[in-house]
């Protein structure tokens, strides 16, 4: 194999594919990237056996076709560190030579046939198609709420729930829940599966062109996504999270009797400031709603206290005092793309709901303040 590459394009691709490579694995070939040539493209592939990713680099000239399997960290470091416009990658047996204008690197690799097969998309039965921009937005609005821990429910991933062209993504860590709705370009029947967080994080890196079409295939315990057209489409394959997602629809309240609309930035600023005087022991911020004002207060023992006032234009309902983990609120405010946000409440021990419009719903369980 001998390929002349545009260095900048190669760095971008290495950054994305390299993030699949497991940090710690005793299997040396899994620490590698597989390079191959196909249809005038340089293909890069990596897997940690749960997630596999393959993508092509167009800005290359292939002088000789072939394959290579080389340690991901070394090739990435070298390509990043060089400042040449172009680099030549050439294989000699399992050794890769990387040549720039004034440098020559040799990296010892492995036999490419030792690499686990990376799934293609060619044989996929397409479940649905969605615009990259829409998928990007749905992931952004939900992924942050997924659990990093394990519970009896499968919540360390995001629920992909599709009915015809209506797609919902739902994520929860057992204390708050985010749900975002969007529309597919093509979709029949229904599909429901739980996608691991790592796979979703990777997918977002492939969605930089919002107009691109994402094709999704779901079968047995795997999901496959292809982004872009033809041979240079990036293909990601991931195992699905096994187990049952909790009965999320039961915990989205619809019986609120208090409602208020905030400027997103106003609420965000007030919460951030009140959160400054919380700590591990008292991580709740108290929200006191009364007539036309909201008073946020916090208290950290042996540290101090904070009070922040917010004027309300349209608070509807009886006065209420309720505590929330401020981080849960700012998490949502950070990702919503809306100037206004509505908060619905019922009682100090009942969940609160944040909504931007019909398409984003965020449920937060309160903190019991003493």
């Amino acid at each position, binding site marked *: 194999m001998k390929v002349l590459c545009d260095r900048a394009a190669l760095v971008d691709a290495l950054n994305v594919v390299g993030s699949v490579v497991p940090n710690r694995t005793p299997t040396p070939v899994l620490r590698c990237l597989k390079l191959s040539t196909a249809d005038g493209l340089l293909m890069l592939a990596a897997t940690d056996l749960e997630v596999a990713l393959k993508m092509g680099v167009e800005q290359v000239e292939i002088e000789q076709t072939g394959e290579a399997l080389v340690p991901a960290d070394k090739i990435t470091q070298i390509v990043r560190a060089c400042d040449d416009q172009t680099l030549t990658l050439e294989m000699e047996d399992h050794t890769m030579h990387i040549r720039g204008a004034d440098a020559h690197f040799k990296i010892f690799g492995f036999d490419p046939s030792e690499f686990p097969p990376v799934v293609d998309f060619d044989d996929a039965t397409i479940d649905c198609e969605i615009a990259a921009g829409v998928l990007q937005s749905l992931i952004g609005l939900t992924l942050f709420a997924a659990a990093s821990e394990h519970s009896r429910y499968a919540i360390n991933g995001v629920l992909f729930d599709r009915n015809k062209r209506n797609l919902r993504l739902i994520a929860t860590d*057992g204390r708050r829940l985010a749900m975002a709705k969007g529309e597919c370009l093509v979709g029949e029947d229904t599909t429901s599966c739980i996608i691991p967080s790592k796979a979703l994080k990777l997918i977002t890196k492939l969605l930089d062109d919002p107009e691109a079409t994402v094709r999704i295939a779901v079968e047995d315990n795997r999901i496959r996504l292809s982004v872009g057209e033809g041979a240079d489409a990036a293909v990601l394959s991931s195992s699905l999270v096994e187990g049952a997602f909790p009965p999320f629809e039961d915990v989205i309240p619809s019986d609120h009797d208090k409602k208020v609309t905030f400027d997103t930035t106003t609420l965000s600023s007030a919460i951030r400031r009140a959160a400054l005087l919380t700590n591990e022991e008292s991580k709740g911020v108290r929200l006191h709603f009364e007539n036309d004002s909201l008073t946020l207060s916090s208290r950290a023992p042996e540290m101090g206290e904070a009070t922040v006032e917010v004027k309300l234009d349209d608070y509807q309902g009886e006065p209420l005092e309720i505590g929330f983990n401020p981080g849960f609120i700012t998490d949502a405010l950070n990702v919503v793309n809306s100037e206004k946000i509505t908060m619905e409440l019922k009682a100090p021990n009942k969940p609160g709901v944040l909504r931007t419009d019909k398409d984003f719903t965020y449920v937060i369980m309160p903190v019991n303040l003493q």
Partner: protein
Amino acid sequence: MVVMDEPRTILHVDMDAFFASIEQRDLPELKGKPVLVGGKGPLAVVAAASYEARKFGCRSAQPMAIALRKCPEAVVAKPRMSRYSEVSQQIFCILDDFSPLVEPLSIDEAFVDVTGTERILGSPRQIAQKIRKRIFNETGLTASVGVAPNKFLAKLASDMDKPDGLTIIEREGIPQAIAGLAISRMWGVGPVTEKKLLGMGVKTFGDLQSLPIDELIKQFGSLGAKLHHLSHGDDSRCVTPEQSVKSISQEVTFDEDISDAEKVRDVLLKQVEKVSVRLRKAQLHARTITIKIRYGDFQTITRSMTLNEPSDQTDRLWREAKNLFDKWANSNFKPVRLIGMGVSQPSSPGGLSEQMGLFSKPENERSKRLDATTDAIRNKFGLNAIHRGTS
């Protein structure tokens, strides 16, 4: 006389020449030879001397140069503290099986309160023998044990028949039994007090017993009363398990590499149970969970995770420990020589705010009730009375 509470049975377990014995065990060519553990520099001090070296007058805390003058043929071993603390942990794990009341005094000695366990574990003598036997079987090291009604006497007793000894001080006739001991052996008697006592003609515990308490208080203040009680063998201090807990852990070294992941996982579950019992006893919740795996070639790996909400529930800790283990076992399993599990970053539960859960309530309550029930059973019948099964 101090007020006598119900009679107690306290053990003082003291490892024999701990560091030196570990060196002799790990390097068989040192067996039977005088071994000094310590550095070799001009300022080095002996950290431990094997019994063979003690015959020459070597002892711990002696400058190494002097010890080597007394015993030039002694082998000097560089201290390996991490190894010693590993063995120490192993020994404390054994002690934990006998009583929840284990008070470490140092890396190689501890008090164990076994009051009231006679029905399950046997007579104090049998318990002491069982402990000595398990320590020997599992570590190849010998321990001397003193059994007595209180801490002071137990510590005196463990020293009476060292090494590899067992001494029991019975409840009856204690003042007579200890009357002949030199006053330097008494707790709280340093060189200054000793000199003062010798000046008063007090050489032994017996001499001290015959002095009226008022006289002692006049001479020594509050220490005087203490000396009086101790000379009669009275000591009401309790055995208090570790005061401020930074981490709690358990580990087991197998005799051979275990290639059955299920078997290792079962051991891990028992460790999680023990650790969570200790957490609950200390009324702490842990935030970080770590598992430790060592292969036959001594390569050691650890995997850890941090909980959003600190917990003391066996189920909660097991779920994460199991997940860490399975993740490792499914991808990289190699035969295991040592498995360990620990928690760190403990905090007192509650605080000022409690996060409510969206789904978790019933499960949490069930899990808490289960823990409370099994803890009660263990309190009554011992740590090994009940275990979870893996499914």
